[in-house]
């Protein structure tokens, strides 16, 4: 028996799958407060994909986990999260238990650590099936095998009895996808699902996710540090830097005219297939700022090639360039960048 859902059976037309408004996430740590996510807002509709891009440490994972309520005890999370029109911001763990799984699911960054090494793969799938869908042991088991088969694991029946350490990295990530898909969620967070994997496997996994999304009409949040990965697979893109949204636009619009120097730098850092393998493209020089620091300046200023005095004195607000395209910069760049080299002489806004 399926558990009673707190959400309507049919969503009223036009209600987005997920609305996030002014979400901040802060961790209380001995040295102060880590502002991992600051004032983030976005909307995601069913069947669509939102790409979240940013360097390591920019708060992508924390953002995704904040939405699912998967935060440790030392976290504060002001802001509003509306899921299928219902405000779930203040929900207790007990209430969220019904949301996670059949409504939202997540594929984690690292398949080496996200599977329980002490439990057979099959069990890790069946336990949510049995818990959420009330399936019998046998039904859950055969459903688990079907799922493993669906995500492309060969001899799925045998693999269901394996422990995670007996599987390769790619297989493991497929298994975590199977786990995430088990209860047919409407919203899937894919948190850098390929970062830990071999380049050749990366495309397979991303394609698998895309196929599943299409088939199930899921909403998907695809997180990556690689703008290139997200580019062809998302409808909208949120670029994050130091916990803040620095640019947010429909994918097409973004690539037509990105405004944020950071996005530009990110784009320049995309590994290119036409370069010798393993050679990293231009890495953004410098380091992200200390997440506990609060000074009134553009967070990117220390690393920005176009930095001006104002950038160091005042934090720019998120402004709209055109409907749906927002950015956070005093001196935005205009138009797309030649894709072969980092920006050298950017045009200025008049």
């Amino acid at each position, binding site marked *: 028996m399926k558990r009673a859902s707190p959400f309507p059976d049919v969503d009223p037309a036009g209600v987005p799958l997920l609305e996030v408004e002014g979400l901040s996430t802060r961790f209380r740590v001995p040295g102060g407060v880590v502002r991992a996510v600051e004032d983030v807002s976005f909307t995601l509709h069913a069947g669509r994909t939102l790409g979240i891009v940013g360097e390591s440490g920019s708060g992508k994972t924390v953002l995704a*986990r904040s939405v*699912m309520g*998967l935060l*440790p*005890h030392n976290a504060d999370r002001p802001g509003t999260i509306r899921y299928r029109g219902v405000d779930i911001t203040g929900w207790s*763990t*007990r209430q*969220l*238990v*019904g*949301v*996670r*799984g*059949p409504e939202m*699911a*997540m594929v*984690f960054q*690292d398949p080496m*650590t*996200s*599977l*329980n*090494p*002490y*439990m057979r793969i099959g069990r890790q799938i069946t*336990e*949510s099936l049995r*818990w*959420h869908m009330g399936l019998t042991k046998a039904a859950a088991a055969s459903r688990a095998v079907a799922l493993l088969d669906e995500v492309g694991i060969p001899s799925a029946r045998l693999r269901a009895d394996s*422990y995670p*350490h*007996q599987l390769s990295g790619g297989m493991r990530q497929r298994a*975590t996808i199977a*786990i*995430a898909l*088990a*209860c047919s969620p409407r919203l899937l967070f894919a948190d850098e699902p390929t970062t830990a994997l071999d380049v050749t496997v990366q495309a397979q996994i991303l394609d698998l996710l895309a196929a599943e999304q299409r088939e199930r009409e899921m909403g998907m949040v695809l997180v990556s540090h690689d703008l290139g990965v997200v580019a062809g697979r998302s409808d909208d893109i949120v670029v994050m830097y130091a916990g803040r949204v620095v640019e947010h636009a429909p994918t097409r619009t973004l690539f037509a005219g990105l405004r944020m120097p950071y996005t530009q730098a990110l784009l320049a850092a995309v590994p290119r297939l036409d370069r010798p393998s393993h050679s990293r493209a231009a890495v953004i020089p410098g380091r992200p700022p200390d997440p506990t620091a609060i000074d009134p300046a553009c967070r990117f200023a220390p690393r920005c090639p176009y930095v001006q005095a104002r950038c160091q004195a005042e934090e720019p607000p998120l402004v709209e360039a055109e409907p749906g395209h927002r950015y956070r910069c005093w001196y935005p760049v205009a138009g797309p960048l030649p894709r072969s080299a980092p920006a050298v002489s950017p045009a200025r806004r008049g």
Partner: protein
Amino acid sequence: MRFVRRQLLHLVPVLFVVTFLSFLLINLLPGDPVITILGPGATQEHVTALRKELALDEPIPVRYVHWLKRIATGHLGQSYVNRQPVLEAIRQRLPTTLELMILAEAFALALAIPMGILAARRPNGIFDRVTTTTAFGLLAVPNFMLAVVLVYVFALHWHLLPAEGYTALTQNPFENLRHLVLPAVTLAAADVAVYVRLLRSEMVTTLQQDFITLARAKGLPDRRILLRHAFRPSTFSLVTVIGLNLGRLIGGAFIVEYIFALPGIGTLTVSSIFNRDYLVVQGTVVLIAVGYVLANFLVDVSYSFLDPRIKDVRALT
């Protein structure tokens, strides 16, 4: 199987070393079983005669070799003092001590596991802090003081449980349990403290693992996550310490057996040491050494039950 054989081979040198050391130690201690037997009325001729009769006039290494030879044929000898065969004495007393220790560990774990898990659920939360303080409190209370308090409350005040003594399991299981409750609780107290702390800190570490967050993301309830996902991976130090703890447990059992007048290996060993009843001491030393090696063997085996990865590694070697 190969693993088992290797473990058993370990036992041999351990037994040699332990029995030789104990033989040496007790023989070098001042005092003499002959004086224990003869008492203050001893005369020189009688002492000499009895020493010869008990073969105590030979040098220590020779006696050790004799003892080894005898033990190789399965004879542990008999007590100098009451002439009881050592094996019989051990057989009579082993069940008490085993029961006492098993029960104590069962109590300790029955209390420590839920407490450790709950404490780890919210590190530094109210429950965690109360448990930590209680645990340290328990650690600080000496066995015998706890025994006195327990006896006062449960035996003298409420008349719920006997203050001392023992009834064999085969004779009356219920009475047997009643007699062992207070000693086992006394023995368990310090262990509870250690186990709670250990389990808690390992649980806290485990709960920060990715796979736990994944389990949360699957929408599993807290209870299931704690018990099914976090508990097993958090038991390694606990299992290790339970194995190592056997030594402390035996030491504790000695005191507890004495206080509660339980006829166990502890009281046997202690009185034999006092009486310089060498062969009985040797017998119990062999028993304890074998028990120790066996317990740690079981710990090793249980690792591979706890972690499937270990079994695979072991299969390879």
